[in-house]
């Protein structure tokens, strides 16, 4: 496996300070923001496209959208919560275009790529297959908040901001998802441990 290209050392300035600098025309500050958040954006894009090239396209489009916001961009929440809906929208839109371009015949193949089968991934060798199936069967909106909360480590408020829904909705979706998992035969044992 090829080694990833080395990123420049992270800029000590906060996102807010970097954004302030970009608003004044500092391209290096934008570069620092890009390298700081690119991998997060790629992970989100991959989550929604399931395909590397589409994910890379979605991230590229998202950062182009982002830099065109300057000068005059104001950050009202965390940058990750700004980027999340942008990347998600671009990823889903590109996935849809790819589906249309390839026609319905190959839709199943794309679906298989978008939702990687647990058994096909070597990293999942130690994870029970039924758990993956169970998580895949959760409604998209419920699975999304679980991933954002427990994988991305976002707070309820940050998830609410990123998804554009009230915090109560995030809590409800989380509760429903976890209740389903707790009540299911396959996942119950993990809660009882």
């Amino acid at each position: 496996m090829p080694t990833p290209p080395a990123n420049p050392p992270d800029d000590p300035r906060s996102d807010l300070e970097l954004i302030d600098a970009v608003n004044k025309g500092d391209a290096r500050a934008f570069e620092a923001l890009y390298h700081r958040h690119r991998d997060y954006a790629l992970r989100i894009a991959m989550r929604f496209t399931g395909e590397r090239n589409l994910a890379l396209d979605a991230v590229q489009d998202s950062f182009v959208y982002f830099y065109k916001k300057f000068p005059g961009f104001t950050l009202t929440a965390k940058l990750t919560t700004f980027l999340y809906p942008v990347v998600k929208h671009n990823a889903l839109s590109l996935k849809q275009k790819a589906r249309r371009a390839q026609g319905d015949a190959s839709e199943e193949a794309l679906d298989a790529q978008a939702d990687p089968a647990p058994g096909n991934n070597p990293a999942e060798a130690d994870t029970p297959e039924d758990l993956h199936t169970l998580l895949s069967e959760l409604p998209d909106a419920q699975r999304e908040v679980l991933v954002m909360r427990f994988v991305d480590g976002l707070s309820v408020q940050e998830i609410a901001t990123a998804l554009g829904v009230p915090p109560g909705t995030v809590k409800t979706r989380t509760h429903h998802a976890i209740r389903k998992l707790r009540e299911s035969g396959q996942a119950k044992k993990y809660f009882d441990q």
Partner: protein
Amino acid sequence: MPQEDEQFDSLPPAIVDALRDLDGPAVMPDPRRDADVLSGARQHLAETAGLSRKRRNLRLFFAGGAGGAIAAAAMIALIVFIASPVNGPQSEQDFAANTPDSPQSAAARPGDLNDDGTIDILDAYVLAKQIERDPSSLAMDLNRDGEANQRDIDWVAQQAVALNTGERG
């Protein structure tokens, strides 16, 4: 429901790992795309730098009180524009005809009560005030119907809005 919140606030590590697996393998960034994005950003920021400076200068300009001065100047210009005779003298002949000392003045412009060279809504206002003060005065009977009343005011108003086609007067 703090107890329930706590109950739903964490997930067993195995489930978190399974959720992470759903994301698929980590995507290796593409240096060419990185370069494209960053060069695009540099170009955009260079292009908009001048615009940004102009916006900043404009903000400083307005913050420095110039905005108030401009607004006052605009207001004065507007007042002068409104008060200036729209159908004022256009030639030396017109000017002579509308000079107060000119014998043609009152006869040529019977509705020009404030004697500013034009018949406008201000004349209708002056007439209304004069009729209100002395309704019996036939000097304000501009339409020559034997009475000084609302019809005279209407007549002046009609003169004020009539097209200047040379037929008026």
